[in-house]
């Protein structure tokens, strides 16, 4: 009797972690394709991403923000016109990390989907068009609202640290949108040209 209880316990110890284990952020077949297209260093970057995300998984929202923001801010900035030969292009997280290059929207997108993967509620995350008074140029940051009425936290690639909005005098908010609100219209309808195209590229696993 005792032996059988021990056996069941051992079995549960073996299977429970498997059951609780999360799907990887990038699945293996896709990762293989990324390696084929880019190089082994790309694979390494995705390995570290997965490692960071696994580490962040058990943390609270603020810690998750911190880890994700730090990880993606390591990617080098490059304009779309050089990177993609297009004036404005919203890259998928796989393209962004595969190339290890991107502009402000690409940082925001990759941070958004990584946080969503980690379980941060999408309704708290906003794509915010801002004006950078420092660079006198249009810019985009990811904003995090703990509650709809609370002051947002700014995840930026210029200033690599996360600050509350009130501390970012160099940024003037212009317009923001939330992916969740846009998605309410349904798949068949258009909601936001760039957002719709990005969703399509994500669905097609564009690398």
């Amino acid at each position, binding site marked *: 009797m005792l032996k059988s209880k021990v056996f069941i316990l051992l079995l549960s110890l073996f299977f429970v972690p498997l059951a609780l284990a999360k799907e990887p952020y990038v699945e293996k077949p896709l990762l293989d394709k990324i390696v084929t297209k880019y190089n082994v260093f790309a694979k390494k970057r995705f390995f570290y991403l997965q490692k960071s995300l696994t580490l962040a998984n058990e943390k609270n929202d603020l810690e998750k923000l911190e880890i994700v923001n730090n990880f993606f801010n390591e990617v080098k900035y490059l304009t779309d016109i050089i990177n993609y030969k297009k004036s404005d292009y919203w890259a998928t997280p796989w393209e962004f990390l595969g190339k290890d290059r991107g502009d402000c929207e690409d940082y925001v997108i990759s941070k958004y989907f990584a946080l969503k993967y980690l379980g941060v509620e999408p309704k708290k995350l*906003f794509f915010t068009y801002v004006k950078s008074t420092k660079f006198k140029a249009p810019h985009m940051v990811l*904003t995090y*609202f703990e509650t*709809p*009425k609370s*002051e*947002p936290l700014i995840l930026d690639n210029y200033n690599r640290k996360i600050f509350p*909005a*009130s501390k970012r005098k160099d940024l003037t*908010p*212009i*317009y*923001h*949108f*939330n992916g969740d*609100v846009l998605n*309410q*219209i*349904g798949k068949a*309808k*258009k*909601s936001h040209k760039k957002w719709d195209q990005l969703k399509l590229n994500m669905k097609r696993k564009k690398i």
Partner: protein
Amino acid sequence: MTLFKQIAIMLSIFLLIILATVLTLNFQSANKSVQDRLYEDAKNTATSLSLSLGNANGDISIMSTMINANFDSGYYRNIILIDVDKKVLYKRETETEVLNIPKWFLNFVNIKAPIANANVSAGWSQVGILNVQSDTTYAYKQLYSIFKSLLISFAIISSLGLIILNLLIHTILRPLKEVQKQAAAVIKNEFIIQKNIPYTKEFKDVVLGMNNMVSKVKAMFDKGNEELKAHKELEYIDQVTKLKNRKYFIDKLPSYLKIDASSKSGVNIILSINEMGETNKKLGHSKMNTFLVNIANIFTQNTKNTQDAVISRMNGTDFFILLPGYSSDIALEITKSIKTSCIDIIESLNLDEEKTSISIGIYEYICTDTIPQLLSRSDNALAQAKFSHSTYIEKSSNSLEVMGKEAWKSIINLAIEKNKFYFVPWSVIDTKNKKLDHHVLSINLTIDKNTSYSYAQFMAPAIEAGLSYKIYKNILNLLFKTPQIVLKAKKYALRLPLEYLEATNSYNEISSLLQTNAATLPFKLIIELPDKLVNNNSALIMQYKKLFDMYNIDIGIFEFIGESDDYQYLQNIKPVYIKGEGNYFLTQNTQSLSALRLITDSVDISIIAVGVVDIKILKELQKKGIELFQGKVTEDLEI
């Protein structure tokens, strides 16, 4: 249903399905496009208005004004600003009434304008969400207009498509129409050869096959025609004088010795050349033939002004000249002239007038005489003439009348006036298939229960009194106007005599009767026409044929003795049968009858023997391949 109709219906349905599908898809596409447009307009408004609202720094009154300005200047169902707690901050809404659009269309299309939304912020703070929904009124109007245009296009394209389709099928199937015509002609025993050979292989093979078949049948008919003509010449023509012979005379007599003959009486002149053997010896064979030809020419010359004269060489020495409708007085004048001319010839040949002479007897017959009676009485007149060395006149001992002329006239007029004629059907039996082929209608005149006269009794006095036209007019009215009362069988034949058919008003009267009553006739009708009228292929007979064809009435031929020079008329008239005396068919040689069968079989004409009185004659006729009979014998046949 014709092949043309089947193909036309199938392709038309196919075309309409394609066009209807295109119409539906077009309309659905337009519908989707309009609805997308509604959403895009709403989305653009939501985005641009939310940007503007961002500048109001959360001031509701400014934001309301901005929403009002937008709402009033555009076509929106509603614009609603909701705060972060899902509370409505401001709302503008309009209940629009869609005018000038039918209700069924509104129910049918049922446009739902999607709601577009955008986040509204004030600086870094969220204000809420702006929902914008476009007004569907304009969309309905636009869609209804598109729908009408599509329907008009559909109607025009469908009509054009169907017209073009119709023309195409007509063009493709034109050869088939020709083939169909040819096939119909074959059914009607007409020999049409298709000259335009179709290009389509299948049609080409059919046309060539049918041409070949028709050519063969036509060749069969022509061969029969030629053979019969050749046999008739041998059978009916005296080879020396080219006059008709005894056989012809005997075959022809029944049409004059019958109760409804066009002439109640007439004369038969019998001329005999005496001492023919001596004359032959003296003249020699060649000169003797010339002498006989000259004598024949005298007969022909002297009777050229008499109607229906039948001149026949009965044997080596005797000649008959039958003059229906003429009296012995006129015959006497003719014989005088003939005798004078003959004496002139005898003198010119230096023959002995005492030995080579002409004896002439005259027999005045009546239509009720039998053939043996006419022949024996004619022989007797000749014997008396030879004995008395002068022209001898003999008169028929038969009598036509049991009543006086005036009494008959009165009875017949009464019958015409009171419609006292009744049909009596006689059977025509098909012994091969053991069935009734049809009934021939005879007529009785019944004044009351005790006073009734048969056709044989009243017709001769009627002809004498010139009333036969009125009688036939009366019975035709009876047949067409009240057929259901007297006639119950499926097929009847009515014989129309030559005199009636040739009368001035007959065609118009028959035409009028057919026009009014033919469609409701409860049985199949065959009109029997005399061979004498039919075989001359006249315009009148073709006119009757056209009329009867129009009303689906068949033609039969009676009194057939095959005396025509050409039997093409059988192919032209296409009778369902020919009726001839049983004796006529019995006396035909095998070759003549075979030739006649070749003709009738190739154009599907039955041969019916009439006047057959007993089984013995019927059996003999059956041996000659005749299977249809009319006459007294049919009463003894079991079917």
